[in-house]
């Protein structure tokens, strides 16, 4: 039997089985038995994840669908047990909820096709002509990691794995990168390490620490962090205990898809061109100069083969603000929770970090077809290692830089430390005081900057060929 037909045996340790997921759904249905409104909302959620009942193929057939990759092939698990606590749901390509192949018991959704071949608890190979997978009901997702900068990020703090998956699905379908935490302690640690997020979704009923307490702890780190607290046990916000402690945070009682999206959209307003324009006018001289110098140094990280300048990088960072608003929503947009200056610094940093991993080999080698159209010969080559000529250029540049500081042992020590990936503290342990370190860094900047470069910085080493 094909490997992809045995999802259960291939599940990594800690992965809750589909039975456990369905058991949790069953328990929730029971809990909502006396609350028709909640039950209906829950059904909407289940239907959103698993597909409408009338499109649902027999449980075990769906579970064995051979069209989708198995979760076991994923590099890491995103749905470990609550004890696993933290597991980022980052790579949609391998960890997407839509790839999950749940087994639906009879009491959850009635099979609509031949039941004789597909008993509920029997694992059988799928028919070759399988019905369309139910996850097609969700909109197709773009890559969560576009080349144009950081994507939107979200943190889901939910102790029930199945609900956690549902919220993650909601957010992923809206192009969020989702991280999940099952316990309050882990949530706060994750927030400290990876925050702030575009949105944090918290279940009000978290076991050890109430959702309100978690939210208050998060607000201590970042008072502007947008959050949504899920409180489906209550009919109105007035009934929710301690609601008044978080008046700016929306409490979601109705967990329907449309309601959730509505709240999300309210939390993440787009910045208009007029607002961006106003912020550009408000940037101070020092901020503008920092942006320029920062971009000029960072552009050197593109390995100098793509002819970009710091100005290009700066403009690219700003353009991302509008790309998300007017394009397909995958761009990095300025959400106005940080200043435009901070946003641009972050965008520049992320563009160059992302680009570093890509070797731009298309540089100057073209062939021309009969119609006179130019084609780069190296377009199709993929490589993660620097080309030999790039190594050579980099080596020569390094030698030249180090050569300029032969008579300056402190600067040489700093450069050596940087090149080895050392941090400031580690370099200072080599015998440099704080002042000596700062002075050495300034000398390096000034020397590499050149006297005629007036605030540029890095341009001398932008292109060394």
């Amino acid at each position, binding site marked *: 039997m094909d490997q992809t037909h045995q999802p259960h045996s291939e599940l990594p340790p800690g992965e809750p089985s589909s039975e456990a997921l369905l058991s949790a759904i069953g328990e929730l249905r029971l809990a909502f038995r006396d609350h028709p409104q909640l039950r209906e909302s829950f059904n909407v959620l289940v239907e959103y994840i698993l597909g409408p009942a009338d499109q649902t193929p027999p449980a075990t057939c769906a579970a064995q669908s051979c069209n989708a990759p198995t979760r076991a092939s994923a590099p890491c698990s995103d749905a470990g047990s609550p004890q696993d606590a933290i597991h980022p749901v980052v790579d949609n390509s391998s960890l997407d909820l839509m790839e999950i192949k749940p087994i639906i018991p009879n009491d959850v959704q009635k099979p609509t096709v031949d039941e004789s071949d597909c008993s509920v608890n029997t694992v059988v190979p799928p028919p070759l002509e399988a019905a369309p997978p139910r996850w097609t009901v969700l909109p197709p997702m773009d890559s969560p990691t576009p080349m144009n900068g950081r994507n939107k990020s979200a943190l889901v703090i939910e102790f029930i794995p199945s609900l956690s998956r549902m919220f993650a699905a909601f957010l992923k379908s809206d192009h969020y990168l989702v991280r999940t935490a099952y316990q309050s302690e882990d949530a706060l640690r994750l927030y400290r390490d990876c925050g702030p997020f575009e949105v944090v979704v918290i279940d009000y009923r978290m076991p050890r620490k109430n959702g309100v307490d978690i939210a208050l702890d998060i607000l201590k780190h970042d008072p502007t962090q947008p959050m949504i607290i899920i409180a489906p046990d209550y009919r109105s916000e007035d009934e929710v205990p301690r609601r008044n402690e978080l008046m700016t945070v929306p409490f979601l009682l109705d967990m329907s898809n449309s309601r959730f999206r509505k709240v999300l959209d309210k939390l993440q307003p787009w910045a208009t*061109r007029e607002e*961006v*324009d106003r912020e*550009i006018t408000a*940037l101070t*001289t*020092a901020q*503008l*100069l*920092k*942006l*320029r*110098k*920062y971009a000029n*140094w*960072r552009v*050197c*990280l593109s*390995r100098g083969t793509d*002819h970009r300048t710091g*100005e290009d990088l*700066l*403009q690219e960072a*700003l*353009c991302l*603000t*509008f790309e998300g608003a007017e394009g397909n929503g995958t761009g990095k947009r300025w959400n106005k929770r940080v200043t435009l200056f901070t946003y641009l*610094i972050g965008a520049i940093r992320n563009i160059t970090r992302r680009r*570093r991993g890509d070797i731009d080999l*298309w540089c100057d080698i*073209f062939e*021309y077809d009969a119609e*006179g*159209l*130019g*084609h*780069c010969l190296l*377009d199709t080559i993929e490589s993660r*290692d*620097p080309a030999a000529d790039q*190594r050579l250029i*980099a080596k020569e*540049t*390094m030698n030249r830089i180090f050569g300029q500081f032969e008579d300056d042992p402190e600067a040489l020590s700093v*450069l050596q430390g*940087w*090149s*080895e*990936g050392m941090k400031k503290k580690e370099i200072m342990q080599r015998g440099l005081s704080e002042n000596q370190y700062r002075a050495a*860094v300034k000398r390096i*900047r*000034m020397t*590499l*900057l*050149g*006297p*005629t470069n*007036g*605030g540029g910085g*890095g341009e001398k080493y932008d292109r060394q060929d």
Partner: protein
Amino acid sequence: MTDRINPVEKLERIMEQLAESVLELSDEALLAEITESGGDPQQEAERTRSLLRHAARPQEVDQRLSNVGDTTDSHCCRTGKGLSR
């Protein structure tokens, strides 16, 4: 061990640290540094502001180009595709 790190990565680390060091500078120190290196802080700042404003209004640039009967395609410009000999 460190010798096994390729020179491209070493150079990138240096440039990254230099970039980050700019952010650690105080406003006064930054202005002084630029003046010291022969630049005019005000002029540089206004040039950057103008650059950002242009990026924020790409439709105006497109409009002007379309008025002269041209269009922009950055991909073609960069890759050389569409260029005639």
